[in-house]
């Protein structure tokens, strides 16, 4: 069992009347890349800042390497932060920026020089060592910010949406670089973002936070394929949420009435007859046919949109009730479906999830 580096126990944070972080319990394992994912204002940055020491929890405990850090100011905690807008010292060169933390700890000069050089190499910024931040692009500044943090060999590296201001291509490149860097260094990374694609790409585990609460913490695959709450299902990737009612349960299955038809799913806990549920089916798990499917339950609808999006076809089928269902199919498959056509929708019940309301 992995060692736990950070432990949040029952952490709450209030700003005046606002309850920003609600009873958060979180364990971060040593050496993992954990991402706090959630929409703006959900409390993820606040949580990060509390771990760094810039905010104090209203209640609850934060333990770093087993120690309660409540009394420790930021400069005494063995964590370093990569800030959202880098916060590089404009009056210092890249080298001086990176070496700042080591200088503050009165590290010997030659050691500083060596370690700074290593850090520069790790983020491939040796050529820029004597430049000032204003002479560099956003991406370059970001690397310096990372170098400045990791050179101190912290127990945990906190990253607060560091890629937010970069353009798409650069962002994607940096995602991989950061991932590889983390694997190489072995430092625990606690990453904050609202971009779920980014979270899924980089993380060992993802913690989805909504309205100050931890909805689910799991590997990216699990988050994606087996969301535990409606919010997670909806927030991560694209999904179709079918509202339904449980009409029957058995040992292995549960029957749900959706749009008039009865569908059977693997039994999931907490569902009893009469309960209102949502069934989440990802667009790529949907199938579309012109003919009524044999034996399987299906829904019928009319194609209202059918667009080519580069690698896939995205089709919107509107059901008689008005519900719009999104279907995604690889571009290589049948592209002959026309707008206005009547189609039947089915899906693989193994790839769908029944969620509480």
């Amino acid at each position: 069992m992995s060692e736990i580096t950070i432990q949040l126990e029952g952490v709450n944070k209030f700003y005046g009347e606002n309850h920003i972080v609600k009873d958060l319990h979180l364990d971060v394992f040593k050496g993992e890349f954990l991402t706090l994912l959630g929409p703006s204002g959900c409390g993820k940055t606040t949580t990060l800042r509390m771990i760094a020491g810039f905010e104090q929890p209203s209640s609850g405990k934060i333990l770093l390497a087993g120690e309660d850090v409540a009394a420790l100011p930021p400069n005494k905690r063995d964590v370093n932060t990569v800030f959202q807008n880098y916060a590089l010292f404009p009056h210092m060169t890249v080298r001086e920026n990176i070496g700042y933390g080591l200088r503050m700890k009165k590290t010997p000069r030659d050691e500083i020089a060596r370690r700074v050089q290593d850090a520069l190499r790790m983020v491939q910024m040796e050529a820029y060592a004597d430049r000032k931040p204003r002479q560099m692009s956003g991406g370059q500044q970001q690397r310096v910010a990372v170098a400045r943090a990791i050179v101190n060999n912290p127990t945990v590296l906190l990253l607060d949406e560091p890629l937010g201001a970069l353009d798409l291509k650069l962002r994607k490149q940096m995602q991989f670089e950061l991932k590889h860097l983390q694997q190489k260094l072995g430092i625990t990374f606690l990453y904050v973002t609202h971009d779920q694609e980014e979270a899924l790409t980089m993380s060992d585990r993802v913690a989805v936070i909504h309205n100050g609460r931890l909805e689910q913490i799991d590997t990216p695959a699990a988050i994606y394929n087996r969301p535990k709450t409606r919010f997670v299902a909806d927030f991560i990737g694209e999904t179709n949420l079918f509202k339904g009612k449980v009409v029957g349960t058995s040992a292995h299955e549960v029957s749900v009435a959706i749009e008039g038809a009865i569908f059977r799913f693997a039994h999931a806990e907490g569902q009893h007859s009469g309960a209102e549920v949502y069934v989440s089916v990802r667009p790529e798990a949907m199938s579309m046919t012109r003919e009524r499917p044999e034996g399987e339950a299906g829904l019928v609808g009319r194609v209202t949109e059918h667009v080519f999006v580069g690698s896939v076809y995205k089709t919107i089928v509107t059901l008689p009730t008005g519900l719009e269902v999104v279907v995604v199919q690889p571009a290589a498959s049948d592209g002959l479906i026309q707008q206005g056509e009547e189609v039947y929708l089915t899906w693989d019940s193994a790839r769908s999830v029944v969620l509480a309301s």
Partner: protein
Amino acid sequence: MKKTAVHKKGMLLPLLLPPAIWLFLFLFLPYLNLFSYSFWKPGPFDVVKEFTLHNYAKFFTATSSGSVPYHVLIDTVELALVVTVFTVILSFPLAYYLNFKVTRFKQTIYMLVIIPLWVSYIVRAYSWKIILGTNGILNSAFIWLGVTDHPLDIFLYSKVSVIIGMVHIYTPFVLMPIYTALEQIPRNLLEASKDLGAGRFQSFLHVVVPLALPGVIAGATFAFVLSMGDFLAPSLLGGPDSSTMIANIVQQQFGTSNNWPYGSAIGIVILVLVLAILELTGRAEKRFSALDTVAMRK
């Protein structure tokens, strides 16, 4: 429309013209006039417009009793330096406190510091007379507290009172650029500094001070240049040894001594000195300025 580009350019010129004319009439021409006068000869009624370098020579040459006029300039520079040092010492902590420690009523308190600027200089100087005088508030307080048993003369009509008056009057000029410079320091820099292990004093020394430096230089320059030209404080608050600074000498030349060319020459000398200093401090400011050109988001 074809006209638009030309129209726009044509609009720029009339906008620039009034300030340019103003500057020409009230800055450039007067300086030119001053410059011309410095090369003419004084006469009983009016200036004799014949070229001479005598006025400049006079300023730098000893009189028959051995005293050299330009020593007053040196004394004034010393005084200005002292005033500058004290105003910076006073303004920096105040600006720092306002910026980083005051959360509510920040604007109000800032205004309280700035508003006295709008009160006439003479009124403020006079109020110092009342405070510092033999029977003034300060002496009365000292006697009441038992610090001394008789009033101290040194507080008024001395270098001390001139310095106090000038420091008081020029502090707002120094505070404003320092305050602005401190205000522009992104707060996340201080967080970053703490995050990287710096204590409060270290953050102050390594982050706040270097970034505030341009503001400090600007403010110090204000204080110095203004003090150099101040003739009111010496005249109102100075004693026998401190009532005559270089500006008073110039004032005299345009008054009782009726020697405008000499006054102009001294004026030009001061101007050259001040311009040289402005050049130096301007360069220093540029060298230390890091904030304004960084594309700091948020």
